[in-house]
Every structure is written in C-alpha cells, then in structure tokens.
C-alpha cells in the first residue's frame, strides 16, 4: 500500500477516535472539568498547615502560676482550649476525637515555678497519635508556648532569663513556605496521570468487548496505525488538560513559575506519553474494560498518589521502596514540576527527570506495540 494511502487511512482513524472522544461527555468531563475541580480542592481543601486545634486542659494545680499558664494557652491563636475536670474526662474526649490533645498541669506546678527547678515534670502533654501530623503540631506548639511563658515568668520575677540556642530559618524557592505552592504543581501530576492513564485504559478493551476490534483488524490496519490512532487524540486532550491546570495554578492560585515554557512542555509531553502508554498497555493486555479499569486504578493512579513524592517524601521510604519509585514515572514528573515552578530551569535535575520519563514512555509504548495483536484469537 502506498504511503499516501496509509496516511489517509491513519487520518481516517484519527478522525474516528476524535469523534468518539468529542461525542462522549464523560471523556471531556474528565479531561477538562475534573482537573479544575481537583485543583480547587488542592488549593482550598488540602492544607498541611494546621489551623485551630481543640486542646483539652486539666489543671490539677490551682496556683496562680498554673492559671496564668492556662490563660496563655487559651490566648494562643493555634488552640481552642476545652477544660476538663479530670484526666479521665479528658481521655474520653480524646478518644471521641473532641480534642486532639490535652495538657495536664500537675499538682505542685506552681511551687516548681517559684523554686525554679523540678524533679518530676510539672506539665504532661498528651496527644492523639492516631493523627500524627496534628500530634507533632500540638507537641511543638505547646512546648513553644511553655518556653516563651517560662521566659516571661522568669523575667517578671526578675530572674535571669534561661538562654538556649536558637535558630532563625528561611526557605529558598518558596519563601512563604505556603503549602499550596508545592502542592499544586504536584497535584497537576496526579491529574495528568488520571487523564493519561485512566482515559486510555478503557479505549482498546472497549473495542475488543464491542467487537469493533475485529472490524479494524479485518481492514488490515498495521500495529503502528492502531497504536498511533489511539495515542494522538488522547495526547492532544491530555495537553489541553495540562494547559488548563497549569494556567489555573499560575494565574488563579498565584503560584510562582520560574522555569521556561519550553522545558515545561517538554517534560509534560514526555510524562503524558508514559501515562498514555501505561493505559494503552493495560487496555491491550487485559481486553476487559472492567479489569482494565481496576488495573489502571491500582497500577497508575495509586502509585502516582503514594510513591511519586507528591505528598510523601521518597527519601523517607525504606531503600527497597525507594528503588521501586524509580519505575513510577510520576516521580520524575513531580520532581521536574517542583523544580520548574519553584526554582527554575535547573538542568541537572531536569535532565535526569527527562531521562526517566522517556525511558518509561518508550517501555510502555513499546510493550503496547508488541502486545497489539494483528490477528484474531
């Protein structure tokens, strides 16, 4: 068959796929509306910075010092203090989730402050370990409040202030350390994985289930044409979704972008290729929409959520798992996106990311190509 006819045939296939996409509202919904919803959730709902925490207080000591400390805690903008009459009552509240921690000011606290030393701790802080993030926060803030209060108490008493080593910190690349600034670029990764892998996961399987694959094969289409016709329209769709996400991130959420557009598109395109490859591979291998759907969720989406470094640091994972994350394409994309947004074109980082992404794309698309059957059986 002459190249011109092949090209025309490819064009016809592309047109068919595009029409199928455009006529199915669910595809467009996922590619365009869904990213916007997710971004708004990430922008408004996901907040790793704690706001006001309900904190229980049990004052077993009635001294004026204890009362002053309780007042200081109550005055803190980070806590909403709930007093309990006993440790048991506070424990019940903790178990029911009404408070996320409680402070016990033990009998003898006031005397300790006056004397200036303690043999047993006068303050016990109990946190809800079932919410580790909040527990750390409660621990750190109560400690900090106590330290400041001690210093003021000592100062008002005329005693020499207890000096300790202090630290002043500032952050590069995200000076306000707004969690949004690093969450949103990362969340674009999740959205792209969904659009790339989930949409394509059903595409080939659907043709098998409906019997239209037989018609395509009977027309004598080459493997290249088949894979290409599935790939290209969804690539375009994916890049549109990417454009929407990035545009919203930069212009609506005011997340700074310090890299170059070229690098951004290059990275996004390569990642999309690997995501589409994952979906197509699953669809081709499994042939059942239902199974392909389950597999896509587990093989594409969940790893992107958990192992990409988006929320959970890859460096904190055990060595075995760190190696596993190397085969998760989303991991490279998250790194590249964070760098491009917050730092700019840091080429050593981008180069290794691009290498990982290209390898993944080639591997998945190559496997899809090899697995595509040209015959019925």
């Amino acid at each position, binding site marked *: 068959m002459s190249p011109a006819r092949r090209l025309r045939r490819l064009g016809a296939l592309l047109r068919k796929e595009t029409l199928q996409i455009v006529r199915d509202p669910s595809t467009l919904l996922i590619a365009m509306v869904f990213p916007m919803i997710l971004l708004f959730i990430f922008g408004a709902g996901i907040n790793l910075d704690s706001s006001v925490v309900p904190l229980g207080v049990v004052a077993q000591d009635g001294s004026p010092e204890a009362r002053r400390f309780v007042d200081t805690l109550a005055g803190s903008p980070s806590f909403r203090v709930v007093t309990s009459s006993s440790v048991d009552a506070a424990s019940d509240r903790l*178990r029911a989730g009404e408070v996320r921690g409680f402070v016990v000011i033990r009998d003898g606290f006031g005397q300790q402050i006056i004397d200036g030393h*303690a043999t047993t701790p006068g303050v016990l802080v109990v946190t809800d370990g079932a919410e580790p993030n909040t527990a750390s926060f409660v621990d750190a803030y109560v400690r900090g409040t106590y330290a400041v209060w001690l210093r003021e108490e000592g100062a008002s008493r005329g005693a020499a202030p207890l*000096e300790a080593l202090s630290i002043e910190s500032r952050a590069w690349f*995200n000076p306000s350390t707004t969690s949004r600034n690093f969450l949103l670029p990362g969340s674009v990764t999740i959205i792209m994985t969904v659009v790339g892998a989930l949409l394509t996961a059903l595409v080939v399987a659907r043709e098998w289930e409906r019997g239209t694959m037989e018609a395509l094969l009977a027309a004598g289409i080459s493997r290249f044409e088949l894979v290409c016709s599935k790939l290209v329209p969804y690539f375009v769709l994916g890049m549109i979704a990417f454009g929407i996400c990035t545009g919203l991130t930069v212009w609506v959420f005011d997340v700074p972008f310090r890299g170059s557009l070229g690098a951004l598109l290059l990275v996004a395109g390569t990642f999309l290729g690997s995501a589409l490859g994952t979906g197509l591979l699953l669809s081709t291998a499994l042939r059942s929409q239902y*199974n392909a759907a*389950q*597999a896509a969720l587990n093989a594409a989406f969940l790893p992107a959520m958990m192992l990409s470094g988006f929320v959970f640091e890859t460096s*904190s*994972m055990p060595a075995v798992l760190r190696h596993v994350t190397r085969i998760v394409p989303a991991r490279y994309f998250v790194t590249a996106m964070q760098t491009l947004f917050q730092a700019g074109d840091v080429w050593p980082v981008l180069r290794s990311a691009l290498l990982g992404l290209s390898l993944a794309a080639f591997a998945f698309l190559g496997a899809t190509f090899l697995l595509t059957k040209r015959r019925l059986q």
Partner: protein
Amino acid sequence: MTATLIRLFGLVKKELEAILGDKQSLRLLIMPVLLQTLLFPFAATLEVKNNTIAILDEDGGALSAEVVQRLTHTPAFTRVVRVGSEAEARDWLDTQRALIILRFGPEFSRSAARGEPEPIQAILDGRRSNSAQIGMAYVQAVLRDVPLAAGEPAAVPGLVTRHWYNENLEYYRFIVPSLVAIITTLSALVVTAMSVAREREQGTLDQLLVSPLTPGLIFLGKAAPALVVAVLQSTLILLAGIYGYGIEFRGSIPLLYACMVAYVGALVGVGLLISSVCSTQQQAFLGVFFFVMPAILLSGYVTPVDNMPAWLERATWANPIRHFLAITKSVYLKGSTFADILPSVLGLVGIGVVTSGGALVIFHRRLS
C-alpha cells in the same frame, strides 16, 4: 416470602459469580490489595529520614562542633556534609542534594560563652517545604539539649509529652487502618457502578428489570458483591495490620464490621446513583473516579479534616469516606465505643438512605 428469598439468593449468586468467577477479575481484587498493604505503610510517611544537611561553619569553635556532632546521630539526617562557602551551599540546595543548610556565624561559640548566643542561620528547600519544616523540628529538638557551656544543664525542663495510641508517632500505624477505608471504597464503588453499566451494555439490565424482581431486591443483589469485596479486602488488610505490622487492634471487631455494612450500604447507593446516569461502562468508571478522587482527598486521609476551612469541613459531612475513615481509625487505634463514633455512624446512615433512595427512584422511573 420464600419465593422472594429464593429470588434474592439466585440473584446474589449470579452477581457473585460475575465478580469472583473470572480468574483475572479475582486476581485483580486480591493482588493489588496485598501489594498496597505491603508497600504503602512504608511509603506514606511524613517522617523525615535519609536526608542530607549541609553545614557552613564559619566559627570553627567547640560549640558548633558539638551541635554538628549531635546532628550526625539523628536518623533524620544520614549525611552531614561540610561546605566551604555560601556558593557551594547554594549548589547543594539548588540540586536538591541537601534539604537544609545550617550556617554558624564567626562569633557563634564566643557569643554563647557570653550567655547571649547568636542565632544559627538555617536555609530550607522550600520545594520540599513539608519535609524541611519537619527536619527543622528535629534540628530544634537536638538544639534544646545542647548546654551552652560544658557541664551546665539544658534549658526548659519540666514538660514531658506522651503520644497516645501511637507512642513513637509512627506513620504506618496511622496508614494501615486508613487503608481499610480507602482500598475498600475504590473497589466497592467500581464493582457496583460498573456491574450495572456492564449489564446495560450487554442488554441484560432490561431483562433484570422486567423480571419478577422488585427494585428493592435488585438493590440488595447489587449490594452483595460490593459487600463481599469490601469484607474480603478489609479482612486481608486487618490481618496484615494486626499480625504483619503488629498494630494492636484496640476496639471491637464486630462493631467495625457492623459499621462496614452501613458503609457499604452508603457506597452502593452512591454507585447506583452514578451508574443510573451513565450509559456505558467507561462513563460509569470515570463517573466513580470523578466522585472518589475528591472524596478521598477531602476525607481526612491526606490532610486532617480539622485543617480544612470551616465551610469545607461542614461539606465533608456528605462524604461517606470521611465518616468511615474516622470510624476505622477510632475503633482500631483508640478502642472507641459505639457512643464515641455515633455521629459518624449517623452520617453514614443518612448518606446511605439519601443515595439509595435516590437511586431506587431513578430505577423505578426507568421501569415505568
């Protein structure tokens, strides 16, 4: 009565065969659960480990050496690197080889000896700001114990912290119970929604609707596979949690399973509602995902519900995952009683009634 039961039994049997009879399908139900339960508790950690901290020591005195020495022994920073200049430090941070830079000024040790220690300068990688801030907390914990002059006791005594239910704040203890909620949600919803959609595509849904089965029975029939899948997967995860990870189950197992039934009821309602407005399997799958993603994000799994703005927190009352996640964590880790989790249970029942009712109405309408 017996006729109804026989019909129900036959329907449930058919549904279960569809889900469990196919080898590929069965493997996809079990394998991923095992993998995830194995991997994710190790992955989902907000602890900071295995990082590099770069030290720019312009002081060279005894105190800065003492601080660096103590930092070398923390698990958070496996590598402590000394850099010679600010430019070198910048480079380490830019390329993300170091998470934090600590800089000791030239007067550091001398100022501390005077009793007015100058602050140490720290620079964090804001791209990984969550980890960097946790790392800083570790650094500050180390600093707290450093005496200003040799032989003096450390500052700020008198306060001790206990983390209940999870003494060392190990994140995997928080993740495994959460996985019970998250993994079963995805599967139960996909199973329900796609089974209806598949029947519609294959034409068997109409056959079902003209059979003597009432919509109520059909609902129960559709709920069966979801319930079986949920119970199967959550049991696997629970076993892994209790015997594999050694996370003690402090509550009542029957209570947890009873809540699971309520939860599956709510999910089936949602799944049926979604599939009632979809005409193909793809739409059903994407529709489920459209619901599940935001629902998981806003359930308290990724970020505590307490951290959300007030209006959003109120909106999550309509999210069944939020309630079941709270129930699972409370019952598993804290040993909560029914009274403790009552608000969440009521939330689940409310959602179940509303969504199932809505789905039943829509299906009823299709019949007439």
